[in-house]
C-alpha cells in the first residue's frame, strides 16, 4: 500500500526500472561504443536498440519528441566530419579546408551511427528518470551519503527559481538607471547579484531542512523503497549484451578501430 501511495511517473516498461540501473546501462553502452570509431559496431548496437525500444513503454510521439535533439545532432556531427574529417583515399571535392574523401565519408557514416547509438538509449533511459527516484536509488542502492544526495536533490528545485530571479534582476537594474552601461559589465554585475540571491536562498533552504531533522545523528529511514531486482539486473545485462555483440561483430568483420590505437 505504501509503495503505490508514492507517485511514480508510470509503471510500464522502462518506467519501472530503478534509475540506478538505467544510469549503469547507459554508461556501460556508451563506455563500449566510445572505444572504437567504426560503423559496424555502431550499426549493430543501433539495430539492437531500435528493437529494444519497442519494449521501453514510451509512445512513439514521446520517443520522437524527446529524442529529437539526437536526431538533429547526429547529422550535424556527421556533416562536420564529412567536410573536415581526416582525409584518406580518393578525394571527391575540395574547397579551402574542406576535403571530402573516402576516409571522411567513412568517418561521417560512423559518426552518424555512433551518435544515434549512444544518444538514443541515453535519452530513452534518462527522460524516464525522476530526480527523486534517482536520489532514492543513489542513497539506498549505491549507498552514497544521504547528506550529499538529498542536499543535491533539494538544491535542484532552486534551479527553477533562477530564471525568474534573473528576469527580476534585469528589470530592477533598468529601474535603477544602470541598464544602459556596457553589456559585459552589466551582465557580470547581474550574474554576481544572482549568485548572492542563490546563496541566500540556499542557506534558507538549509535551515528549513535542518529544522526538519536533516543531518541529525540518527540512522535515516527511507519512505520510498528503492529496489534492485531481476528487472534491473536484466536491463544492465541487456546493455552488456548489446555492447558485447557490437564488439564481437566489429572485431570479426575486421572493422574494429580502437580510438587510442
Amino acid at each position, binding site marked *: *500500500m*505504501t509503495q503505490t*501511495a*508514492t*507517485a511514480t511517473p508510470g509503471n510500464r516498461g522502462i518506467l519501472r526500472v530503478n534509475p540506478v540501473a538505467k544510469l549503469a546501462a547507459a554508461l556501460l553502452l556508451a563506455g563500449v561504443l566510445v572505444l572504437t570509431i567504426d560503423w559496424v559496431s555502431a550499426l549493430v548496437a543501433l539495430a539492437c536498440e531500435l528493437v529494444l525500444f519497442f519494449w521501453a513503454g514510451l509512445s512513439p510521439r514521446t520517443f520522437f519528441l524527446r529524442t529529437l535533439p539526437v536526431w538533429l545532432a547526429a547529422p550535424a556531427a556527421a556533416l562536420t566530419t564529412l567536410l573536415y574529417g581526416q582525409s584518406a583515399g580518393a578525394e571527391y571535392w575540395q574547397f579551402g579546408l574542406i576535403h571530402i574523401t573516402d576516409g571522411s565519408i567513412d568517418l561521417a557514416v560512423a559518426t552518424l551511427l555512433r551518435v544515434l547509438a549512444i544518444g538514443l538509449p541515453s535519452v530513452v533511459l534518462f527522460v524516464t528518470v*525522476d*530526480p*527523486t527516484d534517482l536520489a532514492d536509488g543513489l542513497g539506498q542502492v549505491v549507498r552514497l551519503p544521504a547528506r550529499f544526495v538529498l542536499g543535491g*536533490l*533539494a538544491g535542484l*528545485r532552486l534551479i*527553477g*527559481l533562477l530564471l525568474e*530571479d534573473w528576469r*527580476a*534582476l534585469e*528589470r*530592477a*537594474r*533598468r*529601474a*535603477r*538607471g*544602470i*541598464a*544602459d552601461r556596457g553589456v559585459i559589465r552589466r551582465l557580470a*554585475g547581474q550574474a554576481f*547579484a544572482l549568485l*548572492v*540571491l542563490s546563496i*541566500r*536562498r540556499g542557506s*534558507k*533552504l538549509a*535551515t*528549513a*531542512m*535542518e*529544522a*526538519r*531533522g*536533516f*543531518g*541529525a545523528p*540518527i*540512522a*535515516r*529511514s*527511507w*519512505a*520510498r*523503497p528503492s529496489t534492485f531486482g531481476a528487472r534491473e539486473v536484466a536491463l544492465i545485462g541487456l546493455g552488456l549484451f548489446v555492447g558485447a555483440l557490437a564488439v564481437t561483430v566489429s572485431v570479426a568483420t575486421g572493422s574494429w578501430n580502437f580510438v587510442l590505437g
Partner: protein
Amino acid sequence: MTSPAASHLRVAGASIDASGWGWRHAGRRAWAVRDLDLRIEPGERVLLLGTSGAGKSTLVHALAGVLGAADEGEEQGRLLVNGTTPADARGQVGLLMQDPDSQVILARVGDDVAFGCENLGVPRDETWRRVRESLAMVGLDLPLGHPTSALSGGQKQRLALAGVLAMRPGLLLLDEPTANLDPAGVLEVRESVARVLEHTEATFVVIEHRVGVWQQLVNRVIVLDPAGGVLADGRPADVLSAEGERLSTSGVWVPGIRHQLPSRHRSASGRLLGTEELAIARSRELVVARDIEVEVLAGAALAITGPNGVGKSTLALTLAGLLKPAAGRVLADPRLAAGAGGEPIRWKSRQLLTRIGTVFQDPEHQFVAGTVRAELAVGPRALGLPEPVITARVDTLLQRLRIDHLAQANPFTLSGGEKRRLSVGTVLATQPGVLVLDEPTFGQDFRTWREIVALLAELIDEGTAVVAVSHDAEFVAALADREYRLAAGLDHRSGSLVTR
C-alpha cells in the same frame, strides 16, 4: 486504517526554560537577546511579541536548534527544551518559518511531508500513515504525487506545517508564518493551525506582529524587551490592555488601537500616464489581462487591487516601463516624457530615473551596492549629478527614512522594515514624477507601515503620482484616490475603475 487526525497526535507538550539566556550573532556588537528568564509550561499557547530587533526570531531559532554552532554566535546562560539542550531535542521541536518558497524541500507533496520522518528514522509504514494524517489535519486535500511547485503561498505554508506535524513535535514554533501571504492565504493558514491545536497537546509559540490573527488561539502573551529580558507577560487580554499603546507605538498591530492617518489635500492635477488598448503579459505568450484603461494622475494615488495571480504586478511593471505590453501601448503625456518619447518601455534606463521610479516587492532584487549610502547614491550618480548635490540628497534621505545609523551597513544585512525603507529611498533619490510600488506594506510591522503611508501621503500632496499594487485594504483606504480592480479571466473586460 485509522481515521486521519486521530489520537496518534497526542504527544505530550514540551516545556521551555530560559535562565539568563542570551545570543549574540557572530560579528555583531549588540546582543540579539540577553538576560532572558522564562518558563513555558507544557501545552501552553504563547504569542511572542516585541519590536523588530527584539530577538523574537533568534529565540525561536534557538529553540529549534538551528541557530548554528559556536562559530556562528556567542551564547550566555541556559536554554532548555524539556530539560535538554535544543540540539538534543531535535525532532521534538517543529519550526514553521516565514518564506513559503524556501520551505518546500522535495518535488512531490507526499515526499515533502515524509522528509522529516525519514530524517528521524521513522519506519516506512508509520511514515506514510503520519503523512496522510498530517495532510488531513492542515486540510491539504491533494494527491501525494501532486507537484509542490504548483502550490499557492498559503498551500505551501500548510504543506510545511504538515511536514512539521508529521515529526510529532512536542513544541510547535511558528515564525511569522503568514507575513508573506495575501489575506486569503493568511486565513487558510490560521484555520489550519486552529484545527491542529484542537488535536494536539504540543506547546505552541507563534511570533507575529498582527496580533488579531492569533489572539483567539493563544492563552499567553510574552513581550520581549529589546534592551534584554521580558517586557510584559500574562493573559492576552491583560497584556494587550496594559501594554497595547506601547506595543502599538513599537510596531505591533494591536486590534482596537486607533491611529491617526495622515490628512491629504486630494488635488489631482493632470494626467501623466495613460493606456491605449493595453494588454499585459508576464512572458511573451501568456496574456493575463487585456483592454486595460487606466490613467495615472499627478498628485493622486491609484491602487491596483484584485485576487492573486490576475496580473497586478504585471500591470504595475508594464505601466512603469519595465515590461513590454502584449498589445496596445502605455503612453506618457509630454509633461512626464519631457522629450523622451511617448512610450516608457522605449526609454533608456537612465531616462526612467527622473520620470518613473519603481519599488519592487522584494527589496533584495533592487539592491546593487555594498553600503546603504552607496545604494542611495546609485540613481543620482547615473544621472550625472554633481557630487555635492548627491551627498545632500543622500543625507536628507538617510535622515528622513531613519536609516542614518546604518549608512555604512550592507543593504542585505538590514531588517525587513529597514530594507523596505531603503528601497523606497533609492527611488526617491532621483525624484521621479511617477512612483510605482508593488506591495509596499507586505510583511511590514505597524511602525514601518505608518511611516510608509505618511511618506507617500506627503509625496502625493507635493504632486507625485503614486501607483501601488496592494492586498492591504487599510493601506488602500488610507491613500488611494482611485482603485483599479483587476478580475480573473480574459473573456470580459479585465479591470474596472472604482472611484473612492
